[in-house]
């Protein structure tokens, strides 16, 4: 350490150029030495750079410009953002809808996934697969394909399943237009997304819970753990904390990226923009109106919201 430092100091005294060259040369020998590792990495790195890193930079750049694909992008400063937050009422509404939606499906879906995974981990191994399949399958069905069922279930005439039973039982007096009424659009989307929310996070919880070391529970019972809930809070939860963090991060992303279900059930644009989310707004501007600069500003806002929330969760759950 000290010798390396002194050599840097002397070399800067003599010639700063050689010092930089020394650092570069070191990098070069390192790269040459690790070249086999880099060969393994190259295909992934090229794809990752081209379709993830470059797009992040480009998005930020485009969000400060006017770009309609035909002409070259023109730098216009922050006016996209000003337009977005000051003049675009529909965007503000979309942010509201997205948050309203995410604040329900995020926590509820997350807790449901954990609770169900925990319940499954309590039953004998031979029965576990049946329940896992029942809870996990909805999340792997295509939102497009299953919409045939939801559209029938929530149909606005008296032939819709829910309307039929509600009328028969006397809860409603006339059929309710679930997919057209502004008040019911968000709740319907929430129900459908909750149904589909037992995804990768659920599997992570399930696997984590099955691998909590048995002796932890034995040690717990010696230390005076009597009830199942004590076991859950003092032993199980801390043991699966890393999986909880992984699940939480995926949950934040999925609950903010609501798009498919909304488009399938209520369309773009939805009645009075009641089902309009940040991503539908983005899609609208990018691929229907082709205002790529403005749409990029929307993308950057959503990106920052996701990263910000996930940083918070990392700070909260990531600590030991």
């Amino acid at each position, binding site marked *: 350490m000290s010798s390396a430092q002194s050599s840097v100091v002397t070399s800067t005294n003599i010639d700063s150029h050689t010092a930089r060259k020394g650092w570069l040369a070191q990098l070069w020998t390192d790269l040459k030495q690790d070249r086999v590792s880099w060969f393994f990495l190259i295909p992934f790195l090229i794809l990752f750079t081209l379709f993830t890193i470059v797009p992040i930079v480009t998005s930020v750049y485009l969000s400060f410009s006017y770009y309609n694909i035909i002409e070259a992008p023109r730098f216009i400063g922050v006016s996209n953002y000003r337009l977005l937050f000051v003049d675009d009422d529909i965007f503000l509404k979309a942010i509201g809808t997205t948050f309203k939606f995410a604040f329900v499906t995020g926590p509820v879906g997350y807790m449901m996934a954990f609770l169900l995974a925990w319940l499954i981990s309590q039953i004998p191994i031979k029965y576990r697969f049946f329940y896992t399949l029942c809870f996990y399958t909805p999340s792997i069905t295509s939102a497009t394909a299953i919409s045939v069922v939801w559209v029938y279930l929530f149909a606005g005439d008296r032939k819709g399943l829910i309307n039929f039973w509600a009328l028969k039982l006397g809860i409603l007096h006339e059929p309710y237009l679930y*997919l057209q009424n502004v008040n019911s659009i968000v709740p319907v989307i929430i129900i459908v997304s909750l149904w589909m929310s037992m995804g990768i996070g659920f599997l992570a919880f399930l696997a984590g819970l099955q691998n909590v070391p048995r002796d932890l529970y034995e040690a717990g019972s010696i230390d005076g753990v009597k009830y199942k809930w004590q076991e859950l809070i003092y032993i199980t939860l801390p043991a699966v904390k890393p999986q909880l963090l992984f699940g939480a991060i995926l949950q934040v992303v999925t609950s903010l990226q609501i798009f498919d279900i909304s488009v399938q059930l209520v369309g773009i644009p939805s009645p009075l923009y009641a089902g309009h989310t940040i991503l539908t707004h983005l899609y609208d501007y990018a691929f229907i109106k082709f205002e790529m600069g403005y749409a990029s500003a929307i993308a950057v806002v959503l990106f920052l919201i996701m990263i910000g929330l996930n940083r918070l969760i990392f700070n909260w759950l990531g600590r030991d």
Partner: protein
Amino acid sequence: MVRRIRLNVSGMIFYILLTAFALLMLAPLVYMASTAFKPTAELFLFPPRFFFINPTWKNFHQLLLVTGTSFVPFTRYIFNSVIVTIGIVTGGVLTSAMAAFPLAKHRMRFRSAIFNMVVFALMFSPLVLQIPQYLVISKVGLMNTYFAQILPYMAAPVGMFLMVQFARQIPDALLEAARIDGASEWKVFLIVVLPMLKPAIATFALFSFITAWNDPYPALVYATHEDMKSLPIAIQTIGGGAGVVARVGTLAAASFLMIIPTMLVFIITQRMVLQTMAHSGLKE
């Protein structure tokens, strides 16, 4: 003693509730399957019925018949989806398994920096990057090719993360033994690492299969020609747009056909998936 009482009384209630909830979750899928086999007379029955009475294959015939005479036959959409999905799954598995090896097992410069980038990529949806991705694809001239629908989705961060986490627990001694026997790194990878990564590969395959198979997005954005569109788009077209119930039987048959493969892949891979997910933990 305490355990036995629990099993008899509250255990019963617990099983009944859990099973009821499981069946409730399954109900929409069962309803779809049953609709796919309903004859026309039962489709518009009032009051609505959950199960079919006289099952028939007519809806499936209809699906191939009606769409067979149209501009692009239904089988073409299936073909497109199969090609794109196979491309994403095999390409993704190969590149990610290769990249996971040095990230987990080599001492190299920038190793943790690269891994941190993958973890960072977990924190946002790839959907926010769709505009620049679209620009890259259209500038390179890949629009309306299969590559456009495959390449952007191969380097999936979730799968890559799981792959690296899983590769970390391969014992170093095993790799060393192979090296001492004179194996090159490529040989170590092929003979030792790849077989041991099998559960992680199955998991990666499952997740990328599901996204690739279900996502209408790539074909919506990267294909302007009808004959390059995928299965989800075909189903939207049969359905006649958002909120419309048209040709219910045909639509249910198509949807049913679409969901079966994802279930099968999960049933085949589930044991290995749970093995992999045990290593999904994240720590600061």
